[in-house]
């Protein structure tokens, strides 16, 4: 071992900065997980505070506010529909792109669809505001001009799951369609030629050639998302609704709940929630990696 380090010293040194960053921001914080099992107070520090076992976890699932189960449900619901529509729409886009001709048309439309990926969630939040603000928003103006009652969107929580899911799909559709297009460029063109000689129309070709061929990519990408289904997109929720307490219950995901409970309910409780999330993530990622290897001829996700 020493000989190896001596021989390739330079190469190991080149790894050091990156490993230091991971040490500082990923591995050292793992020591803080201990807080999840204690009743942390500043005076006694992380390791001196009273040990309370699983009490923090119990509180998360059974507290009378019911916030724990609620935020888990919100996270799963938003991620689930994001996954469904965020898969169907990009595949449809990729397939449609194969059907249209015209270089300029393709270039312009693809650039337009890819653009939202470059926007931060704060900017998306500003756009959502432009649509839904009570007095000046597009949607209320249209409702009013159509003679309908206007809606105080930012005070009505029931609308916000669909709005957030739509924003999510909107932002990522172009990006994900590029992944599917990349997969489709590898398809064997002779399959399509053979099918059209046999008299299959374009729709039948899509149904019987494109979709089956694209299935492995869909499975792998979906498994990746399922591995992270307990992780909400903090930036998305916070960028779009901020800390609006009227909408909070409906759109708070585990991640935003942890952040906002950090100060009011303490470090121990919120560390416990984060640990629950990480463990669920670890289990699901491991399982989906195993499954991915099965469908993908031995190639895992990483």
């Amino acid at each position, binding site marked *: 071992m020493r000989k190896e380090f001596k021989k*390739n010293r330079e*190469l*190991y040194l*080149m790894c050091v*900065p*990156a490993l230091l*960053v*991971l040490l*500082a*921001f*990923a591995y050292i*914080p*793992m*020591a*803080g997980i201990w*807080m999840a099992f204690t009743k942390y107070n500043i005076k006694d520090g992380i390791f001196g505070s009273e040990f309370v076992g699983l009490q923090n976890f119990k509180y998360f699932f059974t507290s009378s506010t019911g916030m724990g189960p609620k935020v888990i449900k919100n996270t799963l619901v938003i991620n689930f529909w994001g996954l469904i529509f965020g898969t169907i729409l990009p595949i449809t*886009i990729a397939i*449609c792109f194969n*059907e*249209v001709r015209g270089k300029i048309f393709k270039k312009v*439309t693809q*650039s337009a669809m890819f*653009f939202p*990926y*470059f*926007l*931060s969630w*704060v*900017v998306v939040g*500003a*756009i959502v*505001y*432009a649509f839904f*603000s009570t007095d*000046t*928003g*597009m949607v*209320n*103006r249209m409702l009013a001009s159509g003679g309908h009652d206007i809606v105080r969107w*930012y005070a009505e929580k029931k609308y916000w799951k669909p709005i957030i899911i739509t924003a999510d799909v909107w932002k990522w559709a*172009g*990006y994900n369609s*590029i*992944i599917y297009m990349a*997969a489709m460029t590898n398809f064997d063109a002779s399959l*399509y030629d053979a099918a*059209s000689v046999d008299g299959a*129309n*374009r*729709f039948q070709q899509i149904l019987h050639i494109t979709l089956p061929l694209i299935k492995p*990519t869909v499975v*792998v990408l979906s498994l990746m998302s399922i591995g992270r289904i307990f992780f909400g997109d903090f930036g998305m929720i916070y960028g779009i*609704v*901020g800390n609006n307490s009227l909408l909070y219950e409906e759109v708070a995901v585990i*991640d935003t709940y*942890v952040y906002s409970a950090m100060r009011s309910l303490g470090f121990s409780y919120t*560390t416990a929630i984060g*640990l629950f999330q*990480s463990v669920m993530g*670890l289990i699901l990622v491991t399982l989906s990696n195993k499954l991915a290897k099965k469908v993908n001829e031995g190639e895992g996700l990483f």
Partner: protein
Amino acid sequence: MNRRKTKPFSADFWVKAFAYFLIAFLAIACLYPLIMVLSVSFSDNTAVTKYGYSAIPQDFSTDTYLYLFVHSGTRILRSYAVTICITIIGTILSMIITSMISFALSIRALKYRNQIAYICNFTIIFSAGLIPWYYVCTNWYHLTDSYAGLILPTVFSVWSMFLMRTYFDAVPQSLYESAKIDGASYMKIYVSIAIPLCKTAMLTVGLMYALGYWNDWWNALMFINDRDKFPLQYFLYNILSNVNAISSGRVPSGAAANIKLPSETVKMAVTMITIGPIIFLYPFIQKYFVDGIMTGAVKE
């Protein structure tokens, strides 16, 4: 693929018609909001308050931009400067760190390369969570209100390393070996062979990092309380969240009267200023992102 002429009203015709319609529709759905933001930022504020948002400027005026850049003090220019500095310094640091480890791990002669890669991968599948991370960042590393807090926590991305390794792995090892025989050190090989060969890769990953820094407000939300150190995105976030608080009716009207609300046009102008550089660079940088996504996707 077949390119026969499509007969009108056949099944093929409808597939084609649907494809054109859907793509055109979605492209408009992606562009329309931006056009609306742009047009409101160039509108007169009283007209916007009266008639609401629209995709055509109302009473075209550049007052809002004049106000922001000339009359509103230095706040927005400061935030701009913070964002630009963070993006440049952060991207350079990230690129050095990421490309070095990616290069090292692409050398087959490195015996423990799989173990090192595993140390990196593990951080993706398991993390301590927000609170322990926040705790060490603020209590041990003292990142509160420091510019380092806007860079260091996100300075190395394992995903970017994956992507860059894909490119470095494609370089034939024999090139390195012959340079090694000529007496070149690995550092020299990295600088004068590997990086020039992977120029596109460097540009792709560099642009991805730069976009990440430009769009970042998470680090600012975590660490920055001092208004002078707000990056642009966080500046915008603050404007919008004040507005949210009032339009939801949460803030009592008496209190609302005391808070000076930014006008509608200011909100949209700040949004435009935030994404402006991206829009200008977009035609030149888009293809590198597409390339990066495709390279990542093919590997999957």
